[in-house]
């Protein structure tokens, strides 16, 4: 699971007021080489919750010098786009857990795949 995917995931435990962001515990992280595609990163940035990305990357020790706040006019800042590319796409959590921020329910990440099933599917 890449940090971009973590950025999109919400816990859907019934009754939990807010399931976002999920707390990420990384037991095994692998770094992949993904071809740098600046157009993709630029388009994707508008969909990313930057604060969540920053805090999560920091928590698992893969901040890669990305800034705490997303600056305006980053479209032509290749150095920034490369860092964002690395944090979004090249850091992959292979084993670990996602934890619902409200209910504290743990979801396992195994072989890079998060299991968001609740057991009995009591989701909405």
């Amino acid at each position, binding site marked *: *699971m*890449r940090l*971009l*995917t973590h*950025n*999109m*995931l*919400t*816990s*859907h435990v019934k009754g939990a007021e807010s*399931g*976002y962001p999920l707390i990420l515990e990384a037991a095994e992280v692998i770094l992949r080489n*993904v*071809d740098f*595609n600046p*157009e*993709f990163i630029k*388009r*994707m940035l508008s*969909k990313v*919750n930057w604060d969540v990305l920053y805090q999560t990357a920091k928590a698992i020790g893969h901040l890669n010098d990305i800034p705490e706040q997303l600056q305006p006019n980053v479209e032509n800042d290749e150095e920034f786009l490369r860092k964002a590319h690395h944090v979004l*796409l090249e850091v992959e959590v292979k084993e670990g857990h996602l934890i619902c921020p409200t209910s504290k329910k743990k979801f396992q990440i195994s*072989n*890079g*795949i*998060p*299991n*968001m*099933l609740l057991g009995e*599917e009591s*989701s909405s």
Partner: protein
Amino acid sequence: MDYPTPSISHLSRKPYVNYVYDAAEDTFLFMDALQNDAILPLICIEVGSGSGAIISFISKILGPECYYMATDINPIAANCTIDTAKLNEMPQCEVIITDLVSGLKDRLTGNVDVILFNPPYVVTPSKEISGNGIEASWAGGENGREVMDRLFTIVPQLLSPSGLFYLVAIKENYPDEIIKTMKMVGLSGEIILSRKAGRENLFILRFDKENSLS
């Protein structure tokens, strides 16, 4: 233009044989429909990716400009999707074990450009649809519609203004009635391809938001 069919030879071996539905006529008809459409999406989700053949195939069409996510309720199928993606050198395929799009819909509301769904469409007794093994790949309950109907209510929220929703269905699911139902939630749809495969009359349906029709 013809795109290569993804390699899925690992499906006939352990641990996938008997646990993951192999690519069959429904899968191949889905591929034919997808390669006829040219679009430039940013986020593509396949719901119930199973073997992973379809998500791997569409990545050849849409290329690395798109972020691919696949879901499956069957953990073995989820692992199979990853293996198919790797085998076919897919740039990035994220897989999540979940029920339909649970866990994704809050953040992705209005942001998904392509949703693909080859649902469990076989008409079965309702009680057969509760599992998360290989039966989840085909058991569709009454009219084969019980699982796909649950996704239909979510699709209009997930789709981006120019987003497209592709669905596999059979005659017994009443495709014309599906199109009418989706019309009521703001999606305009049509049958874009059909094929008779043995006893199955297969259809590919495509939907978009009515206000974006050209």
